């Protein structure tokens, strides 16, 4: 464990402060320890911390070519995902950074190659034995490519075309021609281009961090379109994202906010006091719905808003325990369920691939530890997070706008490179 963290309970802010002037290994270890101890938790904090550490990897780790850089990022990324396997956003951020590096590298490569033979030309020449042997770039891939009977998972996730079956380039190898990022890539000769790549990638990661910090505001930008005057909006355990959304809507619309709290929190109705105060200041009435009585309010409710820990590729979401119950109640009364989530929470995993979406945690809200006989006598389980099935969700609002479930595939394709989809398995 990192010694600098001893003595006080660290959190994200303190972690970020310690990053300066610390070695890469120490900051990685520090974050792993924090993740394991759940001192950094929640999608936003995990995403931000991951981006910061990956930035350090790009800036400080030793690499001379793109492959090494990718390997470094993958190695650190894998350690972070293993430290907190339930925080799926960590994997997402790692995939985003890997994709970013691949993009920058191929841009650079194309700039370098201008005027000279493209790699793909050598493919064409291998088809014509009579043609002159491929020069320069051809030397990397002599002769026709051998067929790979067993495909590695990373390479087999091929680009989106049905023609792959018949194409000239082996689908598994089509990346080799398109980008220099697999096996045979040439090291970047000049130091200048390595530093150029480094600064490009660092800029890119900073953009990702900007996106993380702006996501909530951007989502809130869609609030007044979705919330209409006179609506009754049920928000289940509002997070910062939902809070901003409601407050933004309150500045323009008159509606009634029903704030549902799941577990009987020790604070009782005092919970979400700041949100209530802000809403009241804007003239919006709030009703606090205690756990279990959602169905009584649902006939009146016009929309249900859920925050998500993660949105999965098939549209299912991982949310606070109890969210599925609210969503099901909404379905029963035919009320739309809207999920608010930054794009960075959208995972390429399917709900069947997620190892165990239900997380059990602190149940002291139900049985206080002072109640000795009960604590001794029964096991009380409390779900901290659970899976809301895809068919219970009607709309997803991300920082890019509102989407239907069928559109999630396209967003995934826009944000992650096919090579990185299987990332944690590598």
């Amino acid at each position, binding site marked *: 464990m990192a010694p600098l963290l001893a003595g006080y309970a660290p959190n994200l802010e303190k972690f970020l402060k310690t990053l300066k002037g610390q070695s890469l290994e120490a900051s990685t270890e520090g974050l792993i320890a924090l993740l394991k101890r759940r001192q950094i938790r929640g999608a936003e904090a995990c995403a931000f911390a991951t981006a910061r550490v990956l930035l350090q990897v790009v800036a400080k780790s030793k690499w001379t070519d793109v492959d090494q850089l990718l390997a470094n990022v993958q190695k650190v990324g894998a350690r972070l995902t293993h430290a907190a396997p339930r925080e799926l956003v960590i994997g997402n951020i790692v995939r985003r950074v890997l994709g970013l590096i691949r993009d920058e590298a191929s841009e650079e490569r194309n700039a370098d190659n201008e005027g000279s033979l493209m790699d793909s030309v050598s493919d064409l020449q291998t088809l*014509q034995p009579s043609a002159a042997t491929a020069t320069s770039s051809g030397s990397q891939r002599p002769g026709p490519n051998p067929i790979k009977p067993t495909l590695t998972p990373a390479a087999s996730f091929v*680009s989106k*075309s049905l*023609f792959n079956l018949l194409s000239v380039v082996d689908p598994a190898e089509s990346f080799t*021609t398109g980008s220099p990022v697999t096996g045979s890539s040439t090291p970047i000769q000049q130091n200048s281009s390595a530093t150029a790549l480094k600064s490009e990638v660092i800029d890119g990661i900073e953009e990702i961090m900007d996106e993380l910090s702006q996501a909530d505001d951007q989502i809130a930008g869609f609030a007044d379109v979705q919330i209409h005057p006179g609506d009754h909006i049920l928000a289940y355990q509002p997070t910062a994202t939902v809070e901003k959304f409601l407050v933004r809507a309150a500045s323009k619309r008159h509606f009634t906010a029903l704030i549902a709290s799941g577990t009987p929190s020790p604070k009782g109705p005092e919970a979400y006091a700041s949100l209530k105060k802000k809403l009241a200041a804007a003239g919006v009435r709030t009703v606090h719905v205690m756990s279990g009585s959602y169905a009584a309010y649902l006939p009146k409710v016009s929309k249900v808003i859920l925050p998500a820990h993660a949105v999965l590729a098939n*549209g299912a979401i991982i949310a606070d325990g109890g969210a599925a119950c609210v969503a099901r109640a909404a379905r029963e009364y035919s009320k739309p369920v809207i999920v608010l989530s930054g794009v960075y929470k959208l995972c390429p995993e399917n709900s*069947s691939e997620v190892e165990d979406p239900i997380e059990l945690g602190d149940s002291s809200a139900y049985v206080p530890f002072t109640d000795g006989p009960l604590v001794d006598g029964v096991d009380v389980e409390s779900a901290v997070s659970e899976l809301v099935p895809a068919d219970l969700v009607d709309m997803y609002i991300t920082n890019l706008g509102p989407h239907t479930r069928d559109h*999630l595939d396209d967003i995934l394709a826009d944000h992650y490179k096919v090579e990185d989809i299987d990332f944690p398995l590598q």
Partner: protein
Amino acid sequence: MTTGDVTKPEPLAIRTAQASAQDDSTPFDIVQEYRTILASDPEISMPVAAIEALIALLGRTSATTAMETVSVIKTHAELLQQAVSNPVPLKAGTDLFQQYLLRSLKGQAAAGSAPPLSFDETRQHLLRNSQRFVTRAKAARETIAYKGAAYVKDGSVVLAAGGSRTVKTLLLRAADRHVERWGSPRFKVVYVMDGSRDSVPAVEALRERGVPVAEIEQSAVAFTLRAARVDMAFVGTEVVVQNGGLLSRMGTFQLATLCQAMKIPFYVAAESHKIVRVYPLSQADLPRCGVRQDVLEFKCAEQQKAEEEDSPDLFNRSFGQQASPIDYTPPEFISSIITEQGVKMPAAVYDLILDLYT
């Protein structure tokens, strides 16, 4: 579809080529070729066999111009489709092949792959690499198995139906994964036996690996889904149609309906070359899609008697010899389609088709 961009052939060349194609001592029989290919390799799927047959044709035809070659391919593809009672899987293969040829005429490159080849180069490439396509198609099955195996978790009960080789491979990979991780397979399989012999080897192979398998009849599916607490169902398919639905062995629709009613995920394992540009509207729409089958025959006693007198064993014949009938599973019953290009929602199939025809 191609009249717009005809490269003007010389009329003389066509005439001589057509004449020689017909005068050939042994005329090329595409149907025979297809059947031979299908019989020679038990692992080959129908679309790929159709592609192989067309490649063989490409090697034999004496057509000299590009357009002539395309038209020869087209007529033979139609011949081939007419020769079978369910032409849709063949159409998947022949359409893919024809589009690939046409694309080279237009000088377009397939997205994300090689640069455009000229028509002659395309032809040479296809002839030379015919065996490689078969290997690729098989490799696709392995990839699907690898992806799908991740779905089979500790303690789950999986229902599989039909004799799909993809599903068989998938379950075997899942068993391998479990052995790697825990030392033995920690899932159970319920296999729906539909009367064909196709599923028997799969059951044997799974039992060989130490996976407990229960064989059930089709009529026991609803009971089993509940009684065995099935977690998910895997099926293979003959084709995936344009809207993300399936045309597959009779009983698939029934199984999908039951799974949806019981909220059990219904996964389809299909190679992407099984995607075809066909859009069935309903079960009754199958004849329009080219499928010829007599599943429904309403009779009264008189007709029945008259037919029995005509040929006493008609009943047995019509049920014994007919190619296995198929039904249509609409996309809303399908949770995900596992292809070698990733796990797709049914709605994403259209994107793949679009890429093929633009």
